[in-house]
């Protein structure tokens, strides 16, 4: 579904992604794990068109999206739940969700998707009129996920959804990711929480200083000595 072929991304002189390749199969959960500053966010931003690759190609459902404008990429079916949630703080929960459906015109389907988001996240329904900036961290994460779902994405990019959340909430978020996937949305999940990510993913990639150093099925990586040592704390 998504194919990244040898991309190189720079911040000025910093070579942040080095000849990076990655594949996401339709219907799967793929995780990209790595330490701070490895280039995970950079990878997702490049897929979404916020950053540009100097070489290589990114294709999505047979469209070359390497140089496509970000709004066109969203329109093709790729949504992102960005690192740090980035909800619109002085807009209400409802308005945040409406903004997620910005490119859609099918009012009825939008309304039914909104219902669905509220069924999945009853806490958001109770806080429909509340400003997003006043929500708790966990609620903001749910809103950020709900907002991305409102675009009806085929591929959802998630950047460290567990960041800064209490363990119980982390479990809940991962359950939600699994459920979203089981309803047909393909997921590319970036995580530092390697253990949780590997436990729900099908495929996995390990990134270190801008390069993919390991890849395989999540099971394989879970049992790999190198991964255990570096990312699973033993």
């Amino acid at each position, binding site marked *: 579904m998504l194919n990244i072929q040898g991309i190189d991304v720079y911040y000025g002189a910093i070579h942040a992604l080095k000849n990076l390749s990655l594949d996401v199969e339709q219907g799967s959960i793929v995780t990209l794990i790595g330490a701070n500053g490895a280039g995970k966010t950079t990878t997702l931003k490049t897929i979404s068109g916020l950053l540009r690759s100097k070489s290589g190609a990114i294709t999505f459902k047979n469209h070359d999206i390497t140089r496509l404008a970000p709004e066109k990429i969203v329109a093709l079916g790729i949504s992102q739940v960005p690192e740090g949630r980035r909800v619109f*703080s002085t807009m209400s929960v409802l308005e945040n969700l409406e*903004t997620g459906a910005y490119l859609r015109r099918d009012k009825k389907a939008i309304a039914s998707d909104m219902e669905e988001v509220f069924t999945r996240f009853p806490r958001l329904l109770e806080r429909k009129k509340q400003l997003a900036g006043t929500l708790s961290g966990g609620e903001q994460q749910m809103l950020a996920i709900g907002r991305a779902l409102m675009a009806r994405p085929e591929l959802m990019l998630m950047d460290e959804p567990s960041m800064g959340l209490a363990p119980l909430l982390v479990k809940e978020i991962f359950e939600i990711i699994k459920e979203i996937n089981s309803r047909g949305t393909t997921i590319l999940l970036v995580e530092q929480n390697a253990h949780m990510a590997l436990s729900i993913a099908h495929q996995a990639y390990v990134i270190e200083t801008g390069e993919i150093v390991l890849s395989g099925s999540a099971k394989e990586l879970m049992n790999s000595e190198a991964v255990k040592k570096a990312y699973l704390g033993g």
Partner: protein
Amino acid sequence: MVEFMQQMVNGLSLGAIYALIALGYTMVYGIILLINFAHGDIMMVGAYVGFFSITMLGSNVFVALLFAMLACAALGVLIEKIAYRPLRNSTRIAALITAIGASLFLEYVTIFFLTPEQRVFPAEAFPMHQYQIMGLYISNKDIFIIVLAVVLMVLLQYIVKRTRAGKAMRAVSLDQEAAVLMGISVDKTISFTFALGSALAAAAGVLIGIYYGTINPLMGIIPGLKAFVAAVLGGIGIIPGAMVGGFLMGILETMVSGYGSSMYRDAVAFGVLILILLIKPTGIFGRNESEKV
């Protein structure tokens, strides 16, 4: 008391005009963090478009307002595209200097084509009636200016709060990158913001023509600066702040001319600016964290 109320009425109509101009400053600042110094001059162009549609096309005030607003919406979009967009990623000082350049450009191109002389805004376009109510003199001009400004502000509030484009505007001003991830086009949203702000300025230009009776190519400078002070007073980037700030500046100015001397009224406006910057730079509505629109 009657004297005070009379100054209030005058202050409200002047303040309504300042508020309309201040809105454009604040919206543009809210979205691209630029003080658009050409904004007062866009108002001036609006006054001229209104003037010529009345004198040459014989249109009534409402049609003149409509033409002025449409023309300036287009002008605002064009200025942003030509002058500001190429500098979107440069330093803020570069954009600020460009804004001053755009301001001078509009002023002197107008002088070149239309001469620096002032023109008398046709009085017959808006025949004046004065009413005496409980000792107060209220003219139909005052009523027209205040009502029109309030209608436009309500309309703006509706656009910003309820429409898709308005929500996009708020989203971009809050978090540009997150807005892009929703599929919002930043360029289009910025153009839309300039169009709205410039249309309001154009309306203010026509209203100034009606209020003062004359227009000239440099008429945008002082009201522009005062409206800028109004926007800062209310809290730059905050829409209701610009409205309140505009009315406060108008009232303050008429009070100073009424009770003190009209010689001081411009000085007072800038005294206010210095005071806000010293006491509360975020303005009346500003919170301490930087929040916009």
